[in-house]
């Protein structure tokens, strides 16, 4: 039947695209096993696990990675908190600043990163502020807030008001209601938003490039070192971060499935 043929073609096509998408990842993982001499990792010279043992041999790289993780964690916490508050406000209440707030968030999400980074640099330069971890953190929280807010708002909109009303009827004040009733219900969205902020922060390159000065983060370090040659440690760190991300996603879906039961 014509429909079966079309289905089969689409099936193959989808898998081809998936393979194409995973191609550079595969190469990256593969060359983490390359038995290469010197600092250049350009031709395949044999299989080895030695680089896994030497993962932290390059102090700059380890520092940069650690810095990225710290900044991402802080971003997750700060942007998670601020974004959740905005998400609740926008999803629950009607108020005068509703439209402008929505607009600003929309603009923050769809603005080109280049322009956001450039404008932050312009601000810091005009204000005579130096550049460093603080400015990177400021930038990361800035672009993460909107993402968290949108995710939380979507969840808040679908909340059943009656439950909260019931809590209030039983004498709970607004803060207690929020803490014991609302927050647990929107918690998955808050976590999702937080994880999103973490992911965006740890991978950010463009905005960080503009606001970091001489400080390096993991993506910046990689960028800096492309000119001379990428050491296998970078491949391995990429592989490990990749594996970590997969584990989180799998854990997440197992937890989701268990919640449904």
């Amino acid at each position, binding site marked *: 039947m*014509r*429909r079966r043929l*079309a*289905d089969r073609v*689409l*099936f193959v*096509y*989808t898998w081809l695209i*998936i393979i194409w*998408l*995973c191609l*550079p*990842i595969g*190469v*990256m993982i593969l*060359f983490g096993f390359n038995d290469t001499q010197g600092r250049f990792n*350009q031709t395949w010279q044999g299989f080895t696990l030695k680089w896994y043992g030497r993962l932290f041999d390059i102090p700059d790289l380890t520092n940069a990675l650690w810095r990225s993780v710290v900044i991402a964690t802080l971003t997750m916490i700060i942007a998670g*908190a*601020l*974004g959740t*508050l*905005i998400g*609740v*406000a926008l999803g629950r*209440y009607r*108020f005068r*600043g509703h439209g402008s707030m929505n607009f*600003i*968030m929309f603009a*923050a999400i*769809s*603005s*080109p*990163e*280049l*322009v*956001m980074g*450039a*404008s*932050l640099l*312009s*601000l810091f*330069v005009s*204000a005579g502020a130096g550049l460093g971890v603080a400015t990177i953190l400021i*930038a990361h929280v*800035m672009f993460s*807030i909107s993402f968290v*807010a949108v995710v939380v708002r979507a969840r808040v909109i679908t909340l059943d008001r009656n439950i909260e009303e019931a809590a209030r009827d039983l004498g709970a004040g*607004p803060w207690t209601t929020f803490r014991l009733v609302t927050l647990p219900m929107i918690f998955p969205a808050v976590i999702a938003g937080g994880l999103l902020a973490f992911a965006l922060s740890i*991978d950010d*390159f*463009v905005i960080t*490039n503009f606001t970091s000065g001489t400080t390096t983060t*993991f993506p910046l370090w*990689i960028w800096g070192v*492309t000119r001379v040659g990428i050491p296998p440690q970078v491949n391995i760190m*990429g592989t490990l*971060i990749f594996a970590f991300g*997969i584990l989180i996603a799998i854990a997440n*879906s197992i937890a989701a499935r268990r919640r449904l039961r």
Partner: protein
Amino acid sequence: MGGRLRTRLTPYALILPGGLWLLLFFVVPMVAMLSLSLQEGDVVSGYQLTFRWQTYVDGFTNYQEQIVRSLWYGLVTTVLQIVIAFPIAYWIAFRGGRRKSMYLFLLLLPFFVSFVLRTISWKFILTDEGLLLAPLKDLGLLPQEFHVLGTAPAVILGLTYNFLPFMVLPIYVALERVDPRVVEAARDLYASPVQVFRRVIFPLSLPGVFAGVLMTFVPASSDYVNSELLGSSNTFMIGQVIQRQYLSNQNYPTASALSFTLMGILLIGIFIYARVLGTEDVLKVAAR
């Protein structure tokens, strides 16, 4: 009475910290950038705000080739992505069945790796004597001087690759919400598969396409990483020019003017696009 006031103030209190952060570090910087673009001087001797609009004109005339090229690359990338993404989104939405999540997960898998690292891996794969080209050259299928890196197709490949999920997912979301009964009804009315697609499925997917275009065209046109790693001076994009003016030449006024110009062009493009698609109604559908 006090309770009512507290309730009325609550939303403002909630948005205050985050809103203040966004105001200070999103809105004010834009203004700072505008101000900087109208200043004259240099880093060593300082700048003065002289409202020199000529900087905008100069910037545009000097770099119009790069601006046009960036918009063109953005456009080609977006169209390519719609073509590549639509069949996948369609297949997963309508035929994915229980495995939908798995497919989406597989599509997003590569994006757990850093953007820079992904693009560098592509650069590595595409080097002149690398994994892809060396065997083809050895077999005589390609001339020795043939190279992929440094050409426009390489940059467009990188752009298409890096932003693909931003196109697949919105289209998928829109298609997934299509009520299969509508499709069934169309077929009951003797519509051919092509007609079903053209008259029913495609229009319903438009909000997704619109969101996808928005999330692809803007970053692709303003990107500089792909062109820096995979391109050459022939593929210079306006993002690279802006980045260079800020971070190499420290020519802040020109850099800021160019940033604003780029943003302005993108905004105009989006509005025109929204008008053409008549997305007012489409947006209402999306809001539901």
